[in-house]
């Protein structure tokens, strides 16, 4: 009785959900995280519901199985825009419409708590990753101090430390593709010395992102500059909101995301800037790190390049933009802080341009070359994946600085808009 009462009370709490994000689902996941009934948690251990959102490649399935098993039992999985794994197909809850997600998640959570539904069975074998066996015939003896692999994993062997050449133990591990700090689909192998990143290898590329619809249309026909610039402002602010979430400013990031749909041409960004300064976002750990070289900046393009002093912007070639008085904004330092401020500056600039273009009804004058929020897009050439620059940027940074650097870069390739139209 008492347990029932407690369970019913627990049902009223926000549902802790861990999203495993696949292709083109990050924006929607951010949007539903604003729903008061749901709570986006950072680790599956805090979650009762796993949301698998967006299409994913078969090579991500082992990682998905591992995440699934890291949710404490009993747990349920919701599937949105993807095919459930075979093992779970018969009991899968498929979310047809993202609007239903809140209701379905609450229902799943309630049925788990009230014992109306059994949790899903684990997908991975319940055995250690490797047997604890030494070299000897009775399992004794081994390399270093160890007899075999205690609890299934080898102990770290010493290697030269990055900073002063002491022989210390590196910590090697791989993260991703479902770690929300990294872009969806990106997985990487890290070697840490203490809290300093010593080595980084990208093991799988992030999923290509699709640009907002006006950018696809702008390659086909002239579109209203006001629409294009509003889409750009929203894109940049969304990225900024996500960076804030990664840096631990969760409620501030929610405030940003909540404000984005209500933005109007001509709105001022200045209050945001003051607010972010007061929050200390621009002086958070690593804000002055992650400096891009000019080669890296050129490769990345878009706001990241302009934050590093390269005035690359396709809008200067558009006569209508020139009529509106457009000039690219540049910063010089190319650090994380510069990129965050660049997003804000460009969002402010876009809102201004949108207000001016709205009054004149200006449309873009060229369709072969447009400036997307990720860089220049042409027919048959969209910004490519640039995640490998992390391999040069991160070594030598402390972990928190490395995270800030990842949070300030938009590295995924852009899915070619023309392809999408034809497919």
């Amino acid at each position, binding site marked *: 009785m008492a347990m029932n009462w407690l369970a019913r009370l627990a049902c009223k709490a926000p549902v802790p959900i861990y999203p495993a994000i696949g292709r083109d689902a990050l924006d929607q996941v951010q949007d539903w995280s604003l729903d008061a009934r749901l709570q986006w948690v950072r680790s599956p251990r805090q979650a009762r519901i796993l949301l698998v959102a967006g299409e994913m490649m078969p090579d991500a399935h082992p990682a998905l199985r591992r995440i699934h098993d*890291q949710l404490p039992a009993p747990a349920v999985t919701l599937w949105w825009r993807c095919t459930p794994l075979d093992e779970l197909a018969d009991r899968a809850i498929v979310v047809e419409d993202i609007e239903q997600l809140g209701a379905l998640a609450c229902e799943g959570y309630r049925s788990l708590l009230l014992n109306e539904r059994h949790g899903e069975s684990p997908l991975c074998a319940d055995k250690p990753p490797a047997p604890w066996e030494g070299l000897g015939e009775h399992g004794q003896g081994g390399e270093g101090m160890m007899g075999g692999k205690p609890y299934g994993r080898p102990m770290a062997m010493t290697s030269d430390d990055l900073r002063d050449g002491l022989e210390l133990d590196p910590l090697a*591990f791989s993260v*991703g593709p479902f770690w929300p700090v990294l872009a969806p689909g990106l997985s990487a192998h890290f070697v840490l010395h203490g809290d300093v990143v010593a080595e980084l290898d990208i093991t799988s590329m992030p999923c290509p992102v699709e640009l907002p619809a006006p950018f696809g249309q702008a390659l086909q026909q002239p579109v209203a500059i006001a629409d294009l610039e509003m889409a750009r402002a929203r894109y940049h602010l969304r990225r900024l909101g996500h960076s804030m979430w990664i840096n631990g400013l969760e409620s501030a990031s929610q405030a940003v995301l909540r404000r984005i749909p209500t933005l109007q041409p001509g709105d001022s960004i200045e209050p945001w800037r003051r607010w972010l300064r007061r929050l200390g976002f621009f002086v958070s750990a690593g804000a002055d790190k992650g400096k891009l070289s000019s080669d890296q900046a050129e490769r990345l393009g878009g706001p990241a390049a302009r934050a590093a002093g390269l005035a690359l912007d396709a809008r200067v070639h558009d006569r209508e933009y020139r009529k509106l008085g457009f000039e690219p904004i540049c910063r010089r330092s190319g650090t994380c802080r510069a990129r965050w401020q660049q997003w804000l500056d460009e969002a402010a600039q876009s809102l201004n341009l949108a207000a001016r273009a709205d009054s004149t009804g200006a449309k873009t004058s060229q369709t072969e070359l447009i400036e997307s929020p990720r860089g220049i897009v042409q027919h048959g050439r969209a910004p490519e994946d640039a995640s490998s620059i992390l391999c040069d940027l991160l070594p030598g940074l402390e972990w928190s600085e490395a995270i800030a650097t990842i949070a300030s870069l938009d590295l995924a390739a852009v899915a070619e808009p023309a392809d999408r139209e034809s497919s």
Partner: protein
Amino acid sequence: MQANDLFTLMIVSLVTFAVGLVLAGFPFSGRDIAWPQRAPFLGGGVPDTHAWSRFHVRYYPMTLLLIAFEMEMMFMYPWAVVYVAEGVKALVEMGMFLAILSIGILYGWREGVFKWQ
């Protein structure tokens, strides 16, 4: 309060503590955590090794230096009182003590503690 009472109180609190420990562990007894659950959360990634790694505590020379200075000060307060009574003998003894401690400070110097990094 009698010694007997204190003893009884101690026994009662120890027994309560022990029973409390057993009860607190009760929900977890007989249920082993599954292997996939034991793995650290890495967004679907896996660790190559255990996380029992030795790494350099970078503030170590700084703590040595702090202890060296702090010990000096700790003994110099009572010494200041004794010095009035004892005179030159106390001064020589304190000189020896400081000489030994300053070896630690010299070591710290060699290790680069005074360099601001």
